[in-house]
Every structure is written in C-alpha cells, then in structure tokens.
C-alpha cells in the first residue's frame, strides 16, 4: 500500500532557534497519527509545515494527489497548494474562531468550501450544509444562525462540518479539544472517532492531551525541543514508554 503522505526530513528554524528538526514519517490512508509534546516542542510548527501554512527550511512533504499521484507540496505552486487545502485537506483549528467566519451563518460557513470548488446551486448547497450539521449533531433549525450564537462545543463541531463537507482525505487538527470542558470534549472525541472511521479519513492530530490520542490515534509521535524522541503504536508508547521524556509525560497525567 502506498502512503497518503510521506514526510521526509522536515526542518524549520526561527532564526537560530529550532522550530522542528528532521522529522520524517509515513501516513497511510485511514490512519490517525498523534503528535504529543509539551508547549514549545514544535508540534504546531510541524503541523503548519505539513499543512502548507508555513514553508519548511528543509525537507519534503509528499502527498498522494488524486490527479497526478505523489507530489511534493512544499515545491508545488501556491494555487495548487491552496486548491489542495480546500479539497483534499482540512484544517481544524484549536480556536473555532480562527477557522470559522463569525459573521456568516452556519449554513454559509459549511457551504463556503462547496462554493469555493464551484457549487452554484443554492438548494443543493443548503441541503448538504443541513445534512452536515446533522452529522455533527447540530440541529437543522440552527442553519441560519451565526456561529457567535453557538456554544464553544457547537462552534468546534461546526468547524469540523465546514472542513469535512468536501470529503477531504487528510485532516490536520491542532488541539481540537483545547478549551472545551471535559463532557463536551468526550462528545467531540466520540464524534471525531465516528467520522474518521466512517469516512476512512487520515488525520494528524496535535495535542498535549494524552487522553485524546489514546482515543483517536493509531500511532503516536512524541516531540521534545523540536525533535521526535519516540514513535510507535499509541498503546505501546503510552503503556511502555521508552524515552525519559515520554515516561515523564505519561506519569504527569493526573489519575482521577
């Protein structure tokens, strides 16, 4: 089987400081990869490099495009990359406000990606938007409300609907459950797990919450100071951590 994404030696520097250093991995279709680490360990830098929002200083991000096979997204032209980012890719921000248009209705938010790829039939756009609101457990009668009238959890679910409506194959998530209270988190994780399985999505999830990766991720990558210090199957890494930092991380989780 061919990987969907092949990351080869990605490095990003901020002046003399290291953002992330020499990260390589393969991601296969349907696989969910978790990236954990403390604040400042370079997880978000890495994610932004992969998603084309930052330009890495070294390395290649090779994505299996639908039309021309394996392509390096770092060197492809900007229009192509932006096209990818609204068709095959999705990006879920930690703060829903960064990923939503707050002054546009929920239906408009979900429909935007459809219209961006050429949908020009109002009725169909609206039907799809309503359908997707249902799939993320938002009542259909909220379709014309603005996200500012939504709770934090609903905003996050709306952001997910907005991203998944064009049927992407790869989802980047940056702390998708950050800032939500635990019961809302649990519901969101449940929803995400369902969608990932149902749509056979590949995902890269950046988080510092080990519970999130335990639930969602098949594989885990632990980062510290810009370097990957440990990789492996999620359960393996969490149950039998080898690296000193991973051991510290796992033992830092409070047991209730």
């Amino acid at each position: 089987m061919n990987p969907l994404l092949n990351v080869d030696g990605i490095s990003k520097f901020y002046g003399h400081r290291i953002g992330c250093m020499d990260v390589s991995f393969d991601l296969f279709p349907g696989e969910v990869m978790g990236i954990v680490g403390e604040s400042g360990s370079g997880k978000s830098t890495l994610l932004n490099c992969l998603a084309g929002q930052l330009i890495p200083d070294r390395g290649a991000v090779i994505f299996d495009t639908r039309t021309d096979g394996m392509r390096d997204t770092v060197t492809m032209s900007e229009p192509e990359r932006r096209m990818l980012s609204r068709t095959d890719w999705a990006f879920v921000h930690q703060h829903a406000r960064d990923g939503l248009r707050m002054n546009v209705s929920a239906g408009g938010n979900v429909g935007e990606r459809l219209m961006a790829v050429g949908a020009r039939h109002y009725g169909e756009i609206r039907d799809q938007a309503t359908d997707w609101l249902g799939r993320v457990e938002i009542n259909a009668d909220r379709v014309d409300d603005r996200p500012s009238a939504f709770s934090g959890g609903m905003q996050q679910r709306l952001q997910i609907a907005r991203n998944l409506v064009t049927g992407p194959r790869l989802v980047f998530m940056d702390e998708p459950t950050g800032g939500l209270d635990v019961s809302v988190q649990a519901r969101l994780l449940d929803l995400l797990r369902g969608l990932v399985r149902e749509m056979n999505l590949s995902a890269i999830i950046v988080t510092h919450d080990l519970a999130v990766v335990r639930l969602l991720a098949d594989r885990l990558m632990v980062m510290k100071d810009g370097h990957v210090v440990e990789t492996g199957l999620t359960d393996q890494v969490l149950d039998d951590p080898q690296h000193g930092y991973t051991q510290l991380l796992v033992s830092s989780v409070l047991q209730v």
Partner: protein
Amino acid sequence: MQSCADYRASEMGLRYKMSDYNFAYLDEQTKRMIRRAILKGLAIPGYQVPFASREMPMPYGWGTGGVQVSAAVLTPDDTFKVIDQGADDTTNAVSIRRFFEKTAGVAVTEATVDASVIQTRHRIPEQDLRSDQILVYQVPIPEPLRFLEPSEVETRKMHSLEEYGLMHVKLYEDISQHGAIATAYAYPVKVEGRYVMDPSPIPKFDNPKLNMAGIQLFGAGREQRIYAVPPYTDVVSLDFDDYPFEASKAEHACDLCGAEDSYLDELIVDDEGGRMFMCSDTDYCAGRRKDGHVGAQGAPYGEDAA
C-alpha cells in the same frame, strides 16, 4: 507686482499665468500617471490598478476618484456631463460640472447623446452609450470582497488566484436571510470570465448595461484604485443556478413621462402615504416629455413650473 514665475511664463510665450489652473486642474505628470493606470486597467478588464491618488478640492466620498479619472481623459474638445443618481441637477453633479467648466473650459451638457465624457455616481444612463463616449464612475469601495475578507493582502491573493467562492457566500447569506438575492446595488460581476468586480453602487437594474459600446472607467480616490471595462466586454452578474440574477426595478411606470423601461426613484409627496415614481435619469425623462409622453401624474412638457 509680477512674480518670477509669471514673468518666466510670459517670456516663454505661454498662454497661462502660473496663477491659472492647469488644464483640467491636475498637473501633467499626475495625468500621465493616471492615464497609465487607466491603460493598464483597460488591458486587464476588471483588475484594480493602484494609483497615486491626489488630494482634490473636495472631500473623500464626493467623487475624488471619478474627478481624477475625468481630469485625465478630458480634452479641450470634449463635452462633459455629470450625473448623480441619474440626475444632472443635484449638488454633487452641479459642482463637479462647474469644476471642470472652470478648470478645463470644456463644454458641458445635460444631454446624454451630446456628451463625450460622462461622470456618474450610482447610475448608468438609460440611453445606450456609443463607442465614442466614456463613462467615468465614482467608486467608494472598489474591492467586492472587502466586507467578507478585511485583509487587502488576502483579497489581492484571492483575485490573483481566482478564488471567488467567498463572493457566493455573500449571495448565499442573502438568500438564506431574505429568500432571494437581496443585494440591490453594487451587485458583483465577473468581467470577461476572469476578475470579479464591484460595478460601484449602481442598482442591479443597470448591471446588464455594463455590456456596452462605450469605455467604462472606475475611479476610487480614497482607496487609490482605478479599474476599467473596455467596450463590448463580457460582464456577467454572479448568481446561483436556482436563483438566477434578476435586474429589478419598482413595478411602476414613471409618473412624469410614463416610461416603463427606466429605473425609478420613489418620492413621498405628502404625509398620507401619497407617493410618486419618476425616472432617476432626469435627461431621459425630460427627453421623453419633450417628445410628448405624459405619465399618470405629469403635465405636458413646458406647462409645469419646473
């Protein structure tokens, strides 16, 4: 006492003293700069060309962009007409017309057919324009995506990459809130299949007229942008398949001249709900009345007080 500059001017045999206005107010370098922007705009229909907008002796929002474009295209042989919401006799139209009478000495007219350059705010004349006529629009906000995307860097990128999905989000919002595309003016258009353009706040009734024989120039003074639509250029109003574009107007005939095909202003005439509709294009209305057309509340031409 004769100033040094005046002395030099007379020595060189120039017709004007330094205290006179340069032809059409602006200095020649500025006009060159604006003409270059206009030519670039015509070469790339619908593309917003940045230009170094000058301070004009009028406030922003009163047509500083249009005035600069007019100044750059006027020649001494031109006949100039100014309309404001279709009318020749509003403050804005009168003062801009006088401005060019004084600073360029050009002939002015109120008749659309006689004008070679027409500066307009918010309307396209009802009379079809010819290929030897230039229509200059005053534009407040040239960027059609502005209210959806506040960043200029981002909107420029969207134009260059032809990412116009967001424009339809606005129309989607209209339909979801009002049941129809409620945008009634400044209705976005796509020019020659490429750039999405704000046609300035003309009513959408005028949008089909954007496919015309005349040259259309758009000047935004405060925003420092010029754009243009060359003659016979394809201009399409954006819409949805199931909610097609409709050029709407009040369902009435003009009460003065009886015209049913012109864009109408609604006027409240008393405090009992009395109202009348009349052509917003005053020249068109007067022309029809001269030809003997009389509307429901109108008197034959020449008999009313006006």
